[in-house]
């Protein structure tokens, strides 16, 4: 998948083995689901070397979740496009969720798991405060345009900076999605935030309305003109230093 993974654990009981386990899971996910790897399971499915009925349990699970998401988003989330399956809009959040569950089951109470800018935050940071999550300015990578104070939830940002590429509208593949550049979703879990951020992004400007209507989720959308639109409950997460 080609992205940085960061794990920050506050609890003193954390061990090196725990970190190894967490990173091993991401490696496992990458080797199975990366469309950039020729021998990944997803690539072998896409090359027709492997049928879905013979796929691994985890692959079937992801396809199941993808179908549920497709239905829940009126088709705006779809891992199938132009003849190939690409489940990356769902797998990243799922992987982070899995690692977060591992840590919780080991009794860790204060941590975050961040993969490629999507994050699950649990408990408090090293200053015993809610975790501070910054939204990056898509037009200036060194700048933060919003600071959020969050705990026990997931934050996912969907975005594409390749004009007309990669993220598309499954309902109209000729529609270039250049109106919006970045959409950040806060939800009860990063898996949920990730899949809905992906779907909402495919809706273009309307995506933020979708998030507004979704109970329990808030969103912050940045458009090509450097203007942001946000949902009515978003402000309660915002920090003004």
């Amino acid at each position, binding site marked *: *998948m*080609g*992205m940085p*993974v*960061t*794990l*920050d*654990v506050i*609890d*003193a009981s954390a061990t090196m083995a725990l970190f*190894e386990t967490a*990173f*091993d899971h*991401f*490696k496992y996910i*990458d080797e199975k689901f990366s469309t950039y790897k*020729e021998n990944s399971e997803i690539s072998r499915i896409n090359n027709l070397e492997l049928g879905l009925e013979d796929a*691994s*349990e985890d692959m079937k*699970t992801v396809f199941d*979740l993808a179908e*549920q998401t497709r239905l*829940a988003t009126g088709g705006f989330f779809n891992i199938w496009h132009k003849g190939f399956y690409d489940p990356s809009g769902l797998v990243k959040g799922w992987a982070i969720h899995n690692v977060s569950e591992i840590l919780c089951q080991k009794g860790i109470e204060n941590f*975050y798991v961040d993969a490629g800018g*999507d*994050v699950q935050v649990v408990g408090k940071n*090293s200053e015993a405060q809610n*975790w*501070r*999550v*910054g939204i*990056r*300015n*898509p*037009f200036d*990578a060194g700048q*933060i*345009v*919003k*600071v959020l104070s969050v705990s026990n939830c997931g934050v*996912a940002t969907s975005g*594409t900076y*390749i*004009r007309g*590429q*990669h993220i598309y509208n499954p309902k109209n593949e000729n529609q270039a999605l250049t109106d919006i550049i*970045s959409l950040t979703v806060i939800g*009860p*879990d990063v898996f*949920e935030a990730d899949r809905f951020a992906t779907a909402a992004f495919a809706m273009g400007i309307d995506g*933020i309305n979708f998030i507004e*209507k*979704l*109970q*329990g989720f808030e969103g912050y959308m940045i458009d090509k*003109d*450097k*203007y942001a639109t*946000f949902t*009515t409950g978003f402000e309660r997460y915002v920090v003004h230093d």
Partner: protein
Amino acid sequence: MPRRQLQKTSSLGQGIRRFFLSGFVVFTFVAYVIHERLTNPDASLTSTPLTPTLTVSQDSSTPLAAVPLSATLPPLASFPLSTDTPQTLPSSTLVNQGLYKNGVFKGPEVDAYYGLVQVQATIQGGKLTDVQFLEYPTDRRTSQEINNIAVPYLQQEALQAQSARVDIVSGATLTSEAFMMSLQNALDSAKN
């Protein structure tokens, strides 16, 4: 080999932070790809499958299809830990046994929104040995006229720089996708 980096040591009230970089930085990416080529591509991690699905933990008025509860995860002892045993290069590295033809292959220019990205892949002995940027965005786009997109009933605001004092940053970087796309195309054109 993925690179690991110690960020903070543990002490009272402090945590341990580990950073794992998976293939973004060019040098690390090349090393990673070379490692992958040397590793038996058919090896699979013995892993117990994770059991499905998640619960949508929100109020009842959700429009979503209900997702069943997740079951407990199986024990993770079955994940083999990576060892530090160095990979020995096969003596036939100079013979082209790889997936790729030897040579230098350019990927297409890919629009990364504020500029173009183009990479060039070098194949030696059938394996990827170098990746270079031929084009990399350096200029910012000039600001455009602000149009009122008029999403009804939702507040809007101009972007404003905020404090950089944060624990985590959310938001993809602009060039990573373009890099991967250009590189993938370069490798595709190098295939035997």
